[in-house]
């Protein structure tokens, strides 16, 4: 069985070139496409119309629940389940529980940010169709790629190839699944 095509992959030499190409591809109305680069290219977020990443919310939810959970835990342990009297002070007071709760907030938010990044990027992923493409290995070095997937409703091999070539790509080829 012949491998199915994954998409058209266009190579660029500079961040500006791939940025302009992305603008054209967006204007042509494509939806299943992405840009690959060795570092984040400034302005690409705007061109591709990304909303604010949800990672921050992951961190907030994780952190807030850890803070509340830790306050409750300390209240339960030192006041409710086994009250410990130290120097006649109240068995539970928020300032006393604040420091460990704050530390756990930091820990949980950090884990949340990491988990959010991993989940939103669909990691861990051991394989990607583009890894089979020899030219694509240069993406982490100094090349920039724009990939339009075959699953895009507007995809047609000849027309899309023409569009990508007109954007000034140095090399366009079909990547296989």
């Amino acid at each position, binding site marked *: 069985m012949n491998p199915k095509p994954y998409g058209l992959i266009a190579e660029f*030499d*500079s*961040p*500006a070139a791939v*940025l302009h190409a992305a603008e054209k591809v967006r204007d042509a109305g494509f939806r299943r496409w*992405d840009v*690959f*680069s*060795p*570092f*984040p*290219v*400034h*302005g*690409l*977020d705007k061109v*591709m119309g*990304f909303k604010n*990443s*949800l*990672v*921050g919310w992951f*961190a907030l939810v994780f952190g807030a629940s850890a803070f509340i959970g830790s306050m409750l*835990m300390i209240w339960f*342990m*030192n006041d409710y*389940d*086994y009250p410990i009297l130290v120097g006649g*002070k109240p068995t539970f007071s928020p300032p006393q*529980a604040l420091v*460990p709760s*704050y*530390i*756990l907030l*930091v*820990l949980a*938010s*950090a*884990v949340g*940010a*990491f988990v*959010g*990044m*991993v989940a*939103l*990027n*669909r*990691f861990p*992923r*051991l*394989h*990607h169709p*583009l*890894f089979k493409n020899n030219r694509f*290995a*240069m*993406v*982490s*070095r*100094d090349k920039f790629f724009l990939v339009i997937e075959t699953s895009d409703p507007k995809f047609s091999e000849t027309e899309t190839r023409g569009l990508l070539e007109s954007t000034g790509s140095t090399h366009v080829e079909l990547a296989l699944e």
Partner: protein
Amino acid sequence: MTDSTTQLESLVPPKELRRGPLVPPQRSLGWLTDHLTAMPEGKTPRWWWILFIPAAFCAAVVLPTMLIYLISTGVGVWGNKQPVAWGWDIINFVWWVGVAHAGTLISAMLFLTRQHWRTAIGRAAEAMTVFAVMCAGLYPAIHIGRVWFAWYLFPLPLTTGMWPQFRSPLMWDVFAVNTYLMVSSLFWYMGLIPDLALLRDRAQTRVRKFLYGLFALGWTGSARQWHNYEKAYLVLSGLATLLVFTVSSIVGMDFATSQLAGWHETIFPFYFVAGAVFCGFGMVLVLLIPLRKWCHLEDIITLRHIDRICKMTLMMSCIMAYIYGIEYFVAWYSGNPYDAWVFGHRLFGHYYWFGGWIMILVNGLLPQLFWIKKVRQNLVLIFVIAVLINIGMWFERFTIIVGSLYQDFLPANWHPFYPTWVDVCTFIGTLGVFFTMYLLFVRFLPMIAVSEVKAITPHADPQHPLGGAKGGRS
């Protein structure tokens, strides 16, 4: 290329307003990639083996031997006795935590303040943080005596029905140090992901491809991935910055909440944070000055980087000098005879008078040499000062801990402290662990954040002529 470069020349601001480039502009992205991956991909150099073998011996033989001896015999093998129950173990704990701090400050705080020069040294400093916290975390665990009960420190349901006492700063410390280790490891690992993908893409053998690929998690460098990644990196650096201020201040509170003269001071949390960052900058310089030469990174970690670290060290030294001054002032001004006794004995005592002098001369005065530009450019001299700073900060902790404990309120209790050979060998063992891990890191992972360094070159800016823009801004 020549066209765009000449255009660039005509568009830049006048010479006196220009900032020097962070990375030499004639270096292409490909050159940077090849150069920065040379160490993890090339042959193991001889200097690496010369350093690695003794370090690994200390880590794999000396430290385990000392730990087995300590645990099977008891804490009495150390010099800890009454009244000095906190000896080298706690001194080394505080020292290692301190070494860790500069890494987080460089990688997180300078990221938030958009100091782009940090990209060249951030990764190396973060690795220092992770390994130093590991060494630090070992000490409280073995210091408790009955190590097999260490899990009492964690809030786990026990058959006794007892819980940890959350009012104690010692308890906070357990949380602070563990959190610090986990957050700094996460931060370090997250920064590594794009570079692990780079090493995966360049791997020549299947084993390397598999291992780097496994830890790269399937990174492709797509715009969507970068989008989430940058956000996560920002959030993590914000959180790590919080830890710069909390971890050592909680360590400081361990001391400040006691009643002991010399410890019972409100300045302690800030004192310990400042000292930690100061000591950490010393360690960054100790690590980077030789490594930049041996790994041929003079173009990436330039003299300007070293100059800036020296300036930050100088600033921290001034803060330390101020704190030392305030401590003596308060000891005199409070009229507390115990305080006056302890502080007088720091400089003119029976046993440990040298500690106070080392503190003031090495930490407060010696780095003042960094006011002179010639000194900030003399790498040998900087290296010597940086090593002395680490020693000086070790003696500061010695003076604070032992110097305050050995003469407490009852003269009948007074007893000097002498370390034993087990104390010394345990410390050498942790130094071995630190350097072993650091050398493995330098050998197998990119010690410069390749994708970050590439992102700050003019080639990376789509608005810049070198980034491909036609007649773009400069």
